[in-house]
């Protein structure tokens, strides 16, 4: 019998294994869409070779908001209060802009209680991957409608939603967000490409991901069920992402493509599928989003992308250094400065 040589575990560019990016065991319902997204996040950070200690994870409250515990164990996590993840993340990222921020929220967390903070985060272009795990209901409080539930959708007990849905993507484009995507937890390939591109993006990257709640909103009559999403998903394009440290662009078959390059050299390549869509055209994005809402279409893909837009720390003219690392003599002015202030008050 010959000895089998154990194959070396696969590693990324940092020499880390995928397991180095995993988190605690999920306690969500079996089959919950959120768990699928968690897996994609693990893969994306692994593939992108992000140092785990540089990642800060944020969330509010909800089933979705529990998930940062289930990925990137070696990273810092802050599970805050309901709907206020944006402000926590804003403070932390300003304090240390070298952190890679990822926030996970739910549709209740974002579109109801947290819509104010959400809008202001977008407006400020805080560097943060902001994932809304959108299931149309409040999972954790047992299935009430959320503000993203579509008009006419029903709950399990037949209750009909008679208010229009908040469209987070239109809102994001409207407020100047420079990376707006919609996806579906069941479309792993697309979600993976979008996540990797989001990691490369330097401002807010909003990912509105339909993520079915198998316990409370996966029935006939729901517009956020697996079946409904699968039947209705209409990708705007196929997305290929090539990070700056890889040189595989040539391998992507040419065709009707548009490339968008990030400042670090990473490239997103869009293959058009059917419709003629330019993800760098804000007006078109808004028009298509409005139109798709009228037609009840479920469009997915990167709806809008403008990688060069300055983010909040730049707008504030901030130093690159993590603020707690700035030496005291640079944040405590000298005695002469105090004397001058005192003199001006005599």
């Amino acid at each position: 019998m010959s000895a089998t040589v154990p194959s070396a575990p696969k590693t990324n560019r940092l020499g880390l294994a995928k397991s180095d990016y995993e988190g605690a065991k999920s306690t969500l319902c079996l089959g919950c869409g959120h768990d699928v997204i968690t897996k994609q996040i693990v893969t994306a950070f692994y593939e992108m070779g992000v140092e785990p200690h540089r990642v800060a994870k944020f969330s509010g409250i909800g089933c979705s908001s529990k998930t940062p515990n289930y990925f990137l164990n070696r990273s810092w996590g802050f599970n805050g209060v309901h709907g206020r993840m944006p402000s926590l993340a804003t403070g932390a990222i300003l304090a240390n802009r070298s952190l890679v921020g990822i926030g996970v929220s739910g549709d209740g967390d974002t579109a109801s209680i947290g819509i104010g903070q959400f809008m202001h985060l977008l407006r400020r272009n805080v560097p943060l991957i902001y994932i809304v795990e959108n299931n149309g209901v409040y999972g954790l409080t047992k299935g009430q409608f959320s503000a993203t539930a579509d008009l006419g959708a029903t709950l399990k007990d037949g209750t009909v939603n008679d208010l229009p849905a908040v469209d987070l993507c239109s809102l994001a484009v409207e407020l100047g967000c420079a990376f707006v995507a919609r996806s579906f937890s069941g479309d792993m390939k697309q979600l993976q490409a979008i996540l990797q591109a989001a990691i490369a993006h330097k401002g807010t990257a909003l990912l509105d991901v339909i993520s079915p709640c198998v316990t409370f909103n996966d029935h006939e009559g729901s517009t956020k069920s697996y079946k409904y999403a699968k039947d209705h998903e209409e990708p705007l394009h196929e997305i290929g992402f090539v990070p700056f440290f890889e040189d595989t662009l040539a391998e992507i078959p040419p065709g009707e493509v548009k490339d968008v390059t990030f400042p670090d050299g990473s490239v997103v390549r869009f293959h058009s599928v059917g419709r003629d869509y330019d993800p760098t055209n804000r007006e078109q994005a808004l028009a298509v989003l409005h139109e798709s809402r009228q037609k009840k279409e479920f469009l997915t893909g990167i709806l809008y992308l403008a990688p060069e837009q300055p983010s909040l720390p730049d707008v504030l003219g901030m130093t690159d250094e993590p603020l707690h690392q700035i030496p005291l003599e640079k944040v405590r002015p000298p005695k002469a400065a105090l004397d001058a202030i005192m003199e001006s008050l005599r």
Partner: protein
Amino acid sequence: MSLGVSGEMPAAITQSAVSANDFSLQVATANGSGSQTANNVLMRAIFRMGIPVSGKNLFPSNIQGLPTWFTIRASGAGYIARKREIDVLILMNPDTAAADVRDVRPGAVVICEKKLGVEKLRDDLTFYPVPFSELVMKVTAGSELAKLRKLIVNMIYVGVAAELMGIETAEVGEAIRRQLKGKTKAIEFNLGAFHLGLDYSQKTFPEKSPYRVERMNATAGKIILDGNNAAAIGCLFAGATVCTWYPITPSSSLCESFIDHCETHRKDPETGKMNVAIVQAEDEIAAIGMVIGAGWAGARSFTATSGPGISLMSEFIGLGYYTEVPSVIIDVQRTGPSTGLPTRTMQGDVLFVYTNSHGDTRHPVLFPSSPEECYLMAQQAFDLAEQLQTPVFVLSDLDLGMNNWMSDPFPYPEGAITRGKVLSAEDVERLKGDWGRYRDVEGDGIPYRTVPGTPHPLAAYFTRGSGHNESGVYSEKPEDYVRNVDRLKRKFETARTLVPGPVFEDRPRAVAGVLAYGTSHWGTVEARDRLSKEFGVELDYCRLTALPAPPSFRDWMQRHDRIFVVEQNRDGQLATILKDEYPEFATRFVSVLQYNGLPLDATTVVNGVLDAQPAPGRKER
């Protein structure tokens, strides 16, 4: 409406003989009339003559047209609390004229616009009617100054008052020049207006005011500033690097001052980049969220707000407490509840702040009494927040934050700043990763933390506002919960030993103790002297500077069978806390309260004490 004396003051404590450097001067104008500069000039000129002063602006929540009173108190004896009795009134606002005249003390001096005709209203006052509107027309008629009439008239009353009260012309001139730093034209026409008033008064009024100033030497080297600016300077020198805020009176000027100071002192001369992040948030919830996020990520972060903001912040403050994140909240209190009197003062948030948020919570609270303490306590708050890993409150108020206070220049901070128990990558390596975010290693209840970004695979931890065990892992186990909140309580006991201690001042033959905190200090110390001088009532004094109070405070209470607790709120909020925390002393507390939105005056305290304390010298009302 008026702000003067209510007329029921006991005769025994009215001032009998008028002496120099002891008066309260009130300027009654409408807001938006630009009187601020003139009033500051008056105050600073007196200050420059070496006489202790304070300047308090009683203003409406409005931009233009409603009545405003600016009160300057000059006191050779150094009392700078608001004085309830008005000795000199400068009456420029027709809307409040009758009430203002009604409310001044007998024998007061009234400088007034002649055409108001208020001289008929009382015969126990000295009136100096001045045709301000005619005078100002004379100097501005047909000139480009016409549109500045409203401003110029203010400097005319400065001239009249200076001449009647003996305020030196040279010092007024210097005060004008300093106030209008470098604006040559403005200095020129303000000086002109001042002299116009001066000349008119000289020619018209042979009889001078009985309330006068005489040069002395009690302000040399001192500065004048408001507590908000002082706190901002404190934050600057504390090395605060994140400031978030949402505008609200009376705290806005704190952050605005911080912004100004940072523009000069926090721009890196080499890179031109800012060593600070300042965000005007969308509301107070976001402001505190950013503070906690930044504190978690290692920065020294703070926000300044007032009562309504604290109400909004409450959920996050509980998160900061339970997740143990250093953060500083400066609450510049105003009159509540609800919108209340937004431009008036109160010590109204003591109880709310101390136990803020749901569940069992307790927070260290610092009570500055003076601008210098705003400066020092702002710095201490950051040290405490990092040492204790918790939100720390600094409780200022509108009187302290926005009014003008004399102060000694501030000392430059000594030594490094306190970062508390922080593990570096090397520490984590040395411990081989065997550390727990909420483990009590030294028995003081304070755990160790790592700062996000620390480059070690075992440095990270998960922070959650839900139940957690010593490692920060989610837990609903009863024993984990109890162990954790008991440790938090232990940590609060440690806080008791770290916060600034009370200031005690005992007197021989004291019959009781009096306790005050924050701005209630000033009226209390003056009252204490008056009680001694006028009634032979001696009181020991304790000024509480922080909660939770150190053991020395219990000892002081132990020694007093009766303790007057002076506060500016209706319900005796500090007394309520003390009764709860020291039930054995509960029957000893006697509240002395003022809650009309005005800064505490000594007369209120004198009366409050005499109501409960027999004083043989007290005359019947």
